[in-house]
């Protein structure tokens, strides 16, 4: 059973067979259902995941027709005009589709009909199957009015008049009905009966920008391919610039003479327009492909499309200051194309008191440059953290005053250091919620300088007497 918050109450949004048999249904308040059946298993509704699933199924339906439309939250519309014969006719296609989807664990109902409206109604409120041309009217008649894709309020209002089936409405004069229940009623009726045309909205968005070139004589050389791509990129760049946009995701499609299609895609970490850059991206992709990029008898059509574009405003170049942001991004793109964007990492700060967790390496393209938040209320001018922080703090032996004095001397890697100057402690307690047994110890950090002028960052682990009787010491970092 699935539930989601609707108007401040958790309500059931979907039930499985077992729950349905118990008399539970969508729309019920979860609290009521729980009162009836305390052991209900409830999952939180995840409309996003549902949408993704629907998209995935739609992708899969590409096998039947390229024209697949979404009917969210749980329907798909396929325009199979001219496709059915490939699958042995409409009935066979329908069977095949249902069979295959059921095999994947999806409850499926499908209907094929002359009109979108009729197919929708038969699939959702009828038995499904193929409605032969000419049978539309007869098939629709016994269906409830909800099968006409009417708003629930309209259906309820009609029900108050005891008008419950399509036949009930068909049998009555149109004008008074339209006057009372809206023209939508008449329009939906006409659409279902094919008196008004309706087409399926294809799902796949057309790429924002496409440029292509056909060749009378197929080309086969890599340099030629790249040259053409660069030229196409040049055409796209002009159009991108007009719209103040840059490409974030590009796709190059190479059509081989023998019908094989080679698709190459490249993502960028910031919007780009520069044709030379595009060329470089695809050069890296092509060289990475090896044998797969075999041109065979050559390509007769090259298409370059920008699938995702993003705002890219013209920026003024700074005076003097080296704007290396661009260089880093370019480097990340080039490395990313070769090794995969996820493998190129970059340090980023993390908002925590615990020093060793304060920085992490993340995939570089995900790191947004932003100012690091300053420590709250910290107003001293000293560098609070050392430049070199050890991944693993190193145990040291130290002599210090209790309870929270700085060390007078300490031994690190067998060398004794006499402390000349020290500041602290800076007390940092561990994150208690990550530590169920409550045993992690508080640290007192000191910045110290030894007689030789070397500076260290070290800490006492455990509060004297409050947490431990013999605190231990660690060296955690070195200042420059």
């Amino acid at each position, binding site marked *: 059973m699935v539930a989601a*918050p609707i108007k401040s109450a958790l309500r059931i949004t979907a039930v499985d067979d077992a729950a349905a048999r118990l008399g539970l249904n969508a729309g019920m308040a979860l609290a009521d259902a729980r009162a*009836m059946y305390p052991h209900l298993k409830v999952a939180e509704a995840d409309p996003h995941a549902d949408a993704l699933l629907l998209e995935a199924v739609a992708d899969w339906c590409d096998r039947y027709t390229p024209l697949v439309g979404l009917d969210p939250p749980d329907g798909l519309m396929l325009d199979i005009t001219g496709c059915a014969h490939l699958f042995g006719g409409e009935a066979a296609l329908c069977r095949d589709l249902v069979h295959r989807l059921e095999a994947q664990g999806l409850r499926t109902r499908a209907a094929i009909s002359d009109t979108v409206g009729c197919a929708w109604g038969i699939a959702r409120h009828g038995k499904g199957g193929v409605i032969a041309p000419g049978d539309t009217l007869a098939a629709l008649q016994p269906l409830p009015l909800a099968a006409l894709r009417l708003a629930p309020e309209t259906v309820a209002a009609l029900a*108050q008049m005891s*008008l419950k089936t399509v036949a009930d409405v068909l049998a009555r004069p149109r004008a008074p009905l339209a*006057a009372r229940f809206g023209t939508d009623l008449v329009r939906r009726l006409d659409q279902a009966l094919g008196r008004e045309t309706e087409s399926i909205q294809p799902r796949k968005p057309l790429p924002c920008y496409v440029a292509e070139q056909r060749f009378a004589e197929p080309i086969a050389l890599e340099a030629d391919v790249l040259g053409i791509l660069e030229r196409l990129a040049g055409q796209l760049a002009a159009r991108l610039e007009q719209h103040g946009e840059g490409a974030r995701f590009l796709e190059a499609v190479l059509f081989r003479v023998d019908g094989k299609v080679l698709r190459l895609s490249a993502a960028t970490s910031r919007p780009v327009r520069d044709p030379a850059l595009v060329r470089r991206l695809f050069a890296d992709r092509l060289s990475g492909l090896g044998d797969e990029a075999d041109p065979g008898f050559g390509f007769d059509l090259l298409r370059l499309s920008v699938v995702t574009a993003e705002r890219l405003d013209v920026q003024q170049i700074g005076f003097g200051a080296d704007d290396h942001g661009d260089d880093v991004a370019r480097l990340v793109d080039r490395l990313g194309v070769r090794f995969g964007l996820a493998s190129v990492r970059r340090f980023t700060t993390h908002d925590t*008191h615990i020093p060793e967790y304060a920085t992490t390496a993340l995939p570089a393209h995900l790191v947004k440059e932003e100012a690091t938040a300053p420590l709250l209320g910290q107003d001293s001018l000293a560098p609070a953290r050392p430049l070199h922080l050890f991944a693993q703090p190193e145990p040291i032996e130290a002599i210090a005053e209790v309870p929270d004095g700085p060390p007078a001397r300490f031994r690190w890697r067998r060398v004794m250091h006499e402390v000349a100057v020290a500041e602290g402690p800076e*007390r940092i307690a561990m994150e208690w*919620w990550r530590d169920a047994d409550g045993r992690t110890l508080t640290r007192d950090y000191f910045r110290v300088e030894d007689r030789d002028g070397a500076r260290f960052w070290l800490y006492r682990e455990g509060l004297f007497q409050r947490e431990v009787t013999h605190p231990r010491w660690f060296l955690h970092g070195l200042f420059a």
Partner: protein
Amino acid sequence: MTVYAELAVTSNFSFLRGASHPEELVEQAKALGLAGLGIADRNSVAGVVRAHSAAKEIGLRLAVGARLVFADGTPDILAYPQDRAAWGRLCRLLTAGKRRAEKGDCILTREDLRAFQEGLNLIVLPAEIRAGPLAALLAQLREADPQAVWLGAGMLYRGDDNRRLARLAALAAQAKVPLLAVNDVLYHVPERRALQDVVSCIREHVTLDQVGRRLEAHAERHLKPAAEMARLFRGAPQAIAETERFLSRCRFSLDELAHNYPTELREGYATPQEALVALAEAGARTRYGETIPLKVRRALSHELKLIGELGYAPYFLTVHDIVRFARSRPQPILCQGRGSAANSVICYCLGITDVDPERIDLLFERFVSAERREPPDIDVDFEHERREEVIQHIYQRYSRERAGLAATVICYRGRSAVREVGKVFGLSDDTVGALAKTLWGWSKEGVAAEQARRVGLDPNDARLVQVLQLSQELSGFPRHLSQHVGGFVITDDRLDEIVPIENAAMEDRTVIEWDKDDLDQLKILKVDVLGLGMLSCLRRAFEFLERHYAAPYTIASLPPEDPAVYRMLSRADSIGVFQVESRAQMSMLPRMKPVQFYDLVIEVAIVRPGPIQGDMVHPYLRRRQNLEPVDYHSQELKDVLEKTLGVPLFQEQAMRIAIVAAGFTPSEADKLRRAMATFRRVGTIQYFRDKLIEGMVARGYPRDFAERCFRQIEGFGEYGFPESHAASFALLVYASAWIKCHYPDVFAAALLNSQPMGFYAPAQIVRDAQEHGVEVRPVDVSFSDWDSTLEPLDGEATATLHPRHAAMASDIRTTQALRLGLRQITGFREEDARAIERARGAGFDSIRDLWLRTQLPVAALERLAAADAFRSLGLDRREALWAVRGLRRTGDKDDLPLFAHAAMQEQEPDANLPPMLPGEQVVEDYRALHLSLKAHPLSFLRTELDALGITRHARLADIPSGRRVTVAGLVLVRQRPGSASGVIFMTIEDETGIANTIVWPSVFERFRPIVLGARLISVTGKLQNEAGVIHVVAERITDLTPLLRQLSEAGDELSSLANCDEVRRPISEFRLRPQPARSELRRLLREEPALAEELTAIASVMPKGRNFH
């Protein structure tokens, strides 16, 4: 030895910042041996009263103030008033900031501080040191008073503490301002760090994983002993010494605010006391005539003397004035006093209550105790719809400067605490919901482990254990202030110089920062102005009686002790009657067979969890039915318990037993009462138990009798009902029963017009009226107003009495029919109904006519049509709907009606709609009105029900007890009384009446989904008939809801559930009651040191750091 006082303390009344109760901070400060404590919450003084009383209890020097947090970048400043006048200015300052901000917020600028700075000792707490601005601020503050500014410094382990301290010391020296050591405390012990982190996350709306450095880095912001503070501040010892000097300059104490009663209501007499004496005398003469009975005279002078000694005359005068105002309105507002002091002779004479104290006998010390010197407590109930008039009168009479609503501190309770903590831990909503369920009974020992497993949680999951522990700590924490339901504070001084005032969520309301307990502590006057639905209902009934029956009555002037009323109640014929209409009360009535007013007092008090748990009901009933002898053991006890046949039922009686039989003094008895209420949750009170039992044994009572007495007292200790409350309520029981008995038409109309109130839905009220011979007429646009009305009967009455009520035939004086009002239509708006009333004139001749004349929106017309309210125009529901829907598009309202008429109506082809079946009509009635006058839905299913062997409810009375029967009906009421160990009482209804079923827990578990989900059920089980109280004890329950679909497609949506359905939304038996102030325990402890041992024993079984509640 070092002396140190902590002056920067944030309690949990800085909501979601501080992590300790004020009491905990005070206690910890005392335990650490601090010289004193200063409580300064964020732009608030909401928590200071609690700190104040705790500090007084244990003898700690306390300074109260506020932490001023500015909106203009000025650093935080702690402000402590030097004297009463400065306290007033601090309150004015906070009020100014709050009144200009959203509820709960406060916007202050440095300018505001400058305006009210006089007499305030200020500690500046810079977050970061910016030398220039800081020096300028100090200089500016010094300008007003050079002796009253300090610079606060903390040593908070930030790594650069010593450098900071040095810089602050230099700055202070330069500005000629003393440096003062603080630890900027957020909690009393370091163990509270986790909770402080959690509340910070709640405040920031983030989870622990997201919160990062917005949390404190460590657990150092707790109270520290003087020696430790001295060690930390070894670089600036003068800053430590300065704290004591600062404290000595804060001389203001909250005690200076006490007894601040308005004094102007003297009615021309020299003192309030004289005025009260005169008013009481005059009142007594009105009540009793010229010869006042000696007993009354004696009681009156005793009460007046006590009031005089305690100086409470202004209090009684204030309440009297409010009541007098309500009664003197052109259309008087019904009201009645309640509460401990209300049923005194003086209140009867002043007209605050109508309960004749001669009819009951109350212990005056119970409510005005000389020793406790606490203000008396009077609540006044007003008609709920007109309470606002009274409130506005109070504002006018005393001005907004002197009157305001008390606050209610909204606290985290079990579930809300778990929910918030769960969210902070990033748990899913579902897990949090499941956790909330297991909260009670959960402990470290894993008592509830099984319970947790049952809802699919792992009780060993460390994270869940943390969540639960922190939730327990959090519960009891204040979350925000809300307005008290009706507690008015009225003072002699300016109110905003006593306590800051802030905006309430409601328009035009202002609320002070203190709640009821705080006001009690400070002995500031509070009157509860409450709304009571039954009073509205009674006022309406009196109006109907006057208009239609020329019978002007008031509550006080109804004929007393009318036997017909008691006859009716004894038959459990009490639907709609105040307080005694619930299932449990109804099954008690035929056994009680009340015959006089005092029986009603008992009836009201006996069906309560306390007496039921204390096993007092059955002994009382047995004695009443002469099945058991009454044994008082002594004359003294007989005096106390005679009225209740030897069974203690009221709080007052428990106290009296302690006094007369065990030798308690009255104030000891009062302690016993308070101890019961406080300790009950954690077990018995050995100390009082021994004292009472030994006291009784010493006076010659048998030990087992003494023990039984204690058990009974203990039983209702927590839920005990004071006799004075019961008496006030009983008066309303009588009044409502009298009207129902003689004028069922009036009663039903008044009830319907006062909805929502009470226990039953309109369907049951209407049906009950019909069974009492009232003709009920349907909602109709031509006849109905917004309210239900009475219409003269045409000729002979058509409706007849139900055989069940045949005995009443001669008591009923009804001569009117009841016309249902438009308010019965679901979703219909009052203004639309009023438009119909205004436009109606001689009537409407078509829907179109009505539409054009009333200008009603089409949606409203649709609702009227759905309610079948156009019958008088010759249209049934479907035809009317068709016509209404047609209006929308067949022309604009501005069209000339004549043309529109000619153009449209004639030309439309006939739609030939299918006719509606009678069953469908009834279902549609229920959908639009929640009732149907046409028929009962079950009457259409009788053939099917007969085939199933189902008995009509009307026949149950003729079936012998013990026979197995099957009954069926719509589910009307599902009740699970907290006291009845999980038994469910379910009432079902068919076309012949209702049937009451009892579902035992084992049966319930088997049929749970049906009991909770079905709308139409059948129940098979044994019939029980006990003195006419009929029950079917369920053995098998079947869901018949699908049958309803035969009536109409929407039939299974048909619902006739009454107002209360306790089962689906259970009233938790563990629900926390408002927590008594912790100082209540402290006070008991001081008064009875012998309790100390028990107190510690109890404290140790409670989770650490959690407040008692």
